[in-house]
């Protein structure tokens, strides 16, 4: 039987990990799905799974980062599977959503519009490119961690990331000009 101090210890560890990884998991999922609501729902699912399986997690086998992001990746994949396909986000829809926030300050509105455009452009990349961007900029993983997570070589990750960011930039600029 675990003692009160051990339980408090486990609770404190979980809270610390939650506070450190929640923003990263949230950002990763936000890159992978189309709406804030979906992001919150899936983030909740990820941490609930982590809590239920926390006893099974072994620090010797993998870092907490690798473990939690493998749960996050699988959760996103399951989400797509249940939805059959990822609905493409149209630019028109993004503009309508952004224009419904007229009471917000200008800089906030500009940022929201840019985020929506970025979401549209991201959805035009291949799933692998989207995943690399999400792991790099959402999870803040280094290339070695991304390589291990995706089963690629580290140099391959670097090349794909460089290419994906330039592709995304071009798509974003085209949207701006269009």
């Amino acid at each position, binding site marked *: *039987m*675990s003692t009160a101090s051990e*339980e408090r210890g*486990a*609770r404190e560890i*979980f*809270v610390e990990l*939650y506070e450190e990884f*929640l*923003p990263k998991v*949230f*950002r990763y999922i*936000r890159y992978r799905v189309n709406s*804030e609501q979906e*992001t*919150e729902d899936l*983030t*909740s699912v990820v*941490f*609930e799974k982590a*809590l*239920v399986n926390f006893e099974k997690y072994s620090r010797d086998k993998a870092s907490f980062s690798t473990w939690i992001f493998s749960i996050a990746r699988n959760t996103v994949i399951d989400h797509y599977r249940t939805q059959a396909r990822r609905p493409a986000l149209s630019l028109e829809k993004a503009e309508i959503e952004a224009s419904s926030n007229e009471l917000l300050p200008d800089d906030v509105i500009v*940022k929201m519009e*840019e*985020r929506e455009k*970025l979401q549209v452009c991201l959805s035009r990349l291949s799933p692998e490119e989207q995943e690399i*961007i999400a792991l*790099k*900029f*959402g999870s*803040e993983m*280094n*290339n070695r961690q991304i390589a291990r997570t995706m089963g690629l070589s580290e140099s391959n990750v*670097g*090349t794909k*990331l*460089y290419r994906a*960011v*330039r592709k*995304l*930039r071009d798509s*974003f600029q085209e949207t701006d000009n269009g």
Partner: protein
Amino acid sequence: MDKERNEEQEFLKDVDRFLNGEEVTPDEGTNEDTRSAIEFARKLTELRAEPSPEFQESLKSKLLRKLTEQEVAAREKVGANWLRDFMDRLMPQSPVWRTAVVTVAILMVATGVMWRTGMFTPTGGLEGETLNGRFSEETFDDESQKWNGMAVAGEQEEEEEGEAVVNIPPWPGAEDDASIFGEELQLEIEITAIEAITRLAGAGFTAPYGDEVTLTLVFTNTGSEPITIDMPQITIAGAPEIGIVYTLSAVDDPVELIPSEPLHMLFVWEQQDSTGAQVTPGVYIFNIGTITITRGDDTFEIVPPSVEVTVVEPQQ
């Protein structure tokens, strides 16, 4: 090819640096394409969505509540395993002996049933049954589900003559050392941003006849905003035929509770009824009404579990 490779390395190095919060200025030799890719990567970082504080707080509360439930379930599982191991050790391994033991046990139960129904005594019936037996039968028939949920028929034990002690399965989260003679009753209520977790520390308390009984409610606000607590009255009820014997008044004004600072509310009952007379030995239930919690414009309610105390017959 080497030039392309160098541009890629320059890009990756700069991205890692600004993700680590460092200032980044591309080298002068960096070509325009890579320079603009680095700038765009910086924009990607700036445009990242952040979880709202409300979401972070509510998910944290939800997870902590689940963690508490898991801990309670684990404790109960350990208890069940202990009982199973104990029974396994008690039972002989040989099938012949197992059969013999089970047969003896069935015979003992059958004998007990026949004795209880009066087959072995000319007078029959349940004469001599203690206060405990009568009280519990009526309690379970007449009282609320909450009573039924806390006490299970068959777990009643007849103690020494005149004593009325009911063994109650501990409330989830209760400490194992229940029924410590004279121990203070303590109900912990942890209030998170949107919900409350009640935990009874100790269950099935006994109190010496005539002693003060102190119920302590410990409130902890684990949310990030102050809250106010509206404390209702607490009624103390005896057996159904006795009903409510005493009422501890409600706290007049709502009490403010700031985050992280525990608040202890003490309620003392001098084992007297409303006329000031000492109550008779027996089981008494502290029924705490609905506690109202207010946080800003939000209001929610907690219905804590009833707390039971057994007043023991004075020693002769």
